[in-house]
């Protein structure tokens, strides 16, 4: 098995929000699978930490939950992005982009400007 990265502190929420933005309402297992797929199976996601993270987002009002039926006709809890969640995602995306840009500038080859 190849070396897998741990999920960084605080980024899991961002991934969840982004996943729900692109996929629409989804259950916990689906979210977990989707995150792993997007990362090209490069992330080692402990599923047990996903549910507290989802609960935290619900408590903060960023997502809401509802029981529904899965594609395999199984009862599952579906999560959906709320308006506040969309705003939160926008803010976090900006922050993240800004941060990566700064770090990237530090790491880029010397001699520019």
């Amino acid at each position, binding site marked *: 098995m190849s070396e897998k990265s741990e999920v960084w502190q605080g980024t899991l929420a961002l991934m969840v929000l982004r996943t729900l933005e692109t996929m629409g309402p989804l*259950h916990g297992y689906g979210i977990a699978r989707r995150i792993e797929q997007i990362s090209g199976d490069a992330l080692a996601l402990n599923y*047990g930490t996903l549910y507290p993270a989802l609960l935290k987002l619900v*408590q903060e009002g960023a997502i809401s939950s509802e029981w529904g039926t899965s594609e395999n006709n199984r009862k599952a809890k579906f999560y959906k992005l709320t308006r506040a969640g969309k705003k939160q995602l926008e803010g976090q995306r900006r922050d993240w982009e800004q941060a990566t840009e700064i770090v990237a500038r530090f790491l880029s080859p010397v001699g520019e400007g």
Partner: protein
Amino acid sequence: MRTIKALWMRFRGTFATDRAESEMYAELESHLEMHIEDGMRAGLTEQEARRQALIKLGGMEQARTAYREQRGLPFVEQLVSDVKYALRTLRKTPGFTATAVLTLALGIGANAAIFTLVNAVLLRNLPVSDPRMLVRIGDQIQCCVQEGAHDDGNYSMFSTHTYQELKKSNPEFEELAAMQAGFAPRPVIARRDGGQETAKSVIAEFVSGNYFRTFGLRPEAGRLITDSDDVTGAPMVAVVSYETWKNDYNGDPSIVGSTFWVNTKAVTVVGIAPSGFFGDRLTNTPPNFYLPIEAMPVLANADYVHDPDSEWLYIVGRIKPGIAWGPLQEKIGVQLKQLFASSRLFSSAHDHPLLAKTHVVLTPAGGGIQYLRDWYGDRLKLLMWISGLVLLIACANIANLLLVRGMGRKSEMAVRTALGAARGRIVRQLMTESVLLSVISGMIALVVSYAGARMLLMMAFPGDQRVPISSGPSLEVLGFALCISTVTGVLFGVAPALTAAQAEPADALRSGKRTTTGGASLLQRGLVIVQAALSLVLLVGAGLFAQNLSKLEHMDMKLDTTNRYIVHFNPQAAGYATTQVGALYQMIEDRFLTMPGMQKVGISTYTPMEGNNNGWGVQIQGQPDLHKHASFIKANAEYFDSVGTRVVMGRGIGLKDTSTAPAVGVVNQSFVNTFFKPGENPLGHRFGIPGPASSGDYEIVGVVEDTSYTDVKWKNHAMYFVPLMQRPASAKRPIEKDSMLYAGAIVLQTSHAMPDMEAIARRMLMGINPNLSVVRFQTFSAQIADRFSTDRMLSRLMTLFGALALLLAAVGLYGVTSYTVARRTGEIGIRMALGAERATVVTMVLRNAMMQTLLGLAIGVPVAYGCVKFVKSQLFEINSVTPGALTIAVGTLLTAALVAGLIPARRAASIEPMQALRTE
């Protein structure tokens, strides 16, 4: 905003419902199923798929725990579970819980009750605006009207003239107000005009026009007294107190503007004083009415109001900000000296040197004039100490109980540690338990405190509901009680908790229960010894106070109280002129004597064992002035018989001693001892107020036995008695102004007890004149008993505290002894299996218990001897621990210890050897 909302959601999540829990189960279950399904689709067996899914989840139980932690607030959740667990544990040991809670509640409650009183009497300010700026000129409590130079030169009461001069010349005060010093003993008679109401004796205080302004008060209704009311000839007005308005007139608003007949003169009520204002001092007789000083000569026929030498006013001022007290005090002292320099009172050779000593002391008056503080201050402090001791004993008890419990739970803690409980968690759990215990106790203590304060108030002011002290615990008391209880709980909860948590689980589990030495620890035994010592001290104290009371009550006062009743009345307030009272007294004697069963009717200015006293300087004619005083009473012919005073020489006052007969006096034995040489015959000598004109006013015609007036502790109390209607030849005042002709009491002696005498007396006086109301009615013995109410209160409280201490000490001893027995069950079993007698076992256990008590005695007895000096001032002629008090205290303590030790000892003796050995 978002975080607050999230926090709130989590707080709600803390009290998770079953539904939230099952939802979580369902969600994780559905997650697992989906994962397994995927795995099986990829070709895994169901078992392998499940295994991998669970690994990916990080374990089902762990996932649930992480979820739960996010759902609620783990800290709050733990606290809730700790409290729940603690409650369950406390419920499981009801004996321990009840003992601990009761011990703490009684200890704290007693303290809080006493603190309520201390707070009200010693600490609280008057309900007026900015009380810190109020200053009193003077530091002593005096009453009621005085004249002349003081030996120490310190003045606290002033004449109207002096007040006005001081007010004029001291701009350092924003306001300087004056008020009657002794209004309590001089009630007035008031009746509302037009109503059905009968005339009532009420308390009125005469105050200066700026009185209410000085205190910064606003009226509840109408207006307050102003300067223009306090002028000779102004229309007479009064302000009624809020309490009187509410209680006696049902809050009737039409009282403002209505006319009252005060001492038969018309007075208009112009306003109601603000609610909560009980006057300028805390007393059990707060004023019902406030009247201007200048109304006093008219209403109360008091000529001393305008006499520049009669001192009768207290002075309280509102000082301007930034004024230093020291120089002001000096300045007022100098002003006073200048005022006195021109007074005739300082002209005599004896008194002139006293002028140089003249000074005043400024005292803070924010708490009012310290009337009760003067009476109860020392006693309250004593009670504080005593209740503090009881609390100490209670705390020792709690410490002991918790220690015993902590050690008993050693193996429980060991098991919990072995099962992986963190030490911090165990300590937190035990602390929660202690704090919970103290909070419960603190709440019960508040109830105890409320009841206790009520009881104290009733003891301190028997039969008086008018004391403006609330027995409800104030915020300060609440804080005080909770503070003590929490500190106690934490302090004595921590020690056992730490010991328990530090134990190595393996050791604790291995050592099991069999032990011979592992009885109570040194600390525990020490606590029991201290408890025994302290309770002995309190028991000795209780004994001394009980002895003191019985000594006072059984002192031979040389009075006869059987079938005697005392009716206080006020002919002056009923509108009688001094020229009319002779006929009135005659009528009272005649009417009462027609009653069947009536034997004697005495009439006098004062009666034995009442609070008041009137003293004058006395000189025997032809002898030098000794500068000594004697109390002075005017009485009718049957007075001596009515109170049971015996004549030992010459004669008493007779029917022939009328206003026109030569003035005579009857003196008591102490008078003879004070003013005559031993063996000298006093009969025939003349005496009077010092001075050539007056020292021959009365001829001594008889000597009576010393009887107790005012106070049984007042020994060698020189007194003289003069016929009611006789005036001294030197009297300068016209008869109209001679207020000494007004009697204050009627003493009735009957052939048998008459329970309805009060109603009869009221009817009889009303029949003579509707304004002649009864100021106070008491049986003679009740009047005497009243004089002991403080001593009785102290004695009862000491007994109460002593009993409490004894009970607590006994519980402590019982706790430690039974703990030891429980620990040594195995050992005792072996001893008995080896042939020890049951009696030997009992002796062995008892010996231990009694040893601790004896050690306590050995410490307590010397401490008790040492403590007597703190209470000596409250005792009468008791200077050391009496053998009686000591014997009873030691006996009681030993008996209690014996009982407390015998119960566990018998339990030890009833141990069945086989049973004991099997309980491992």
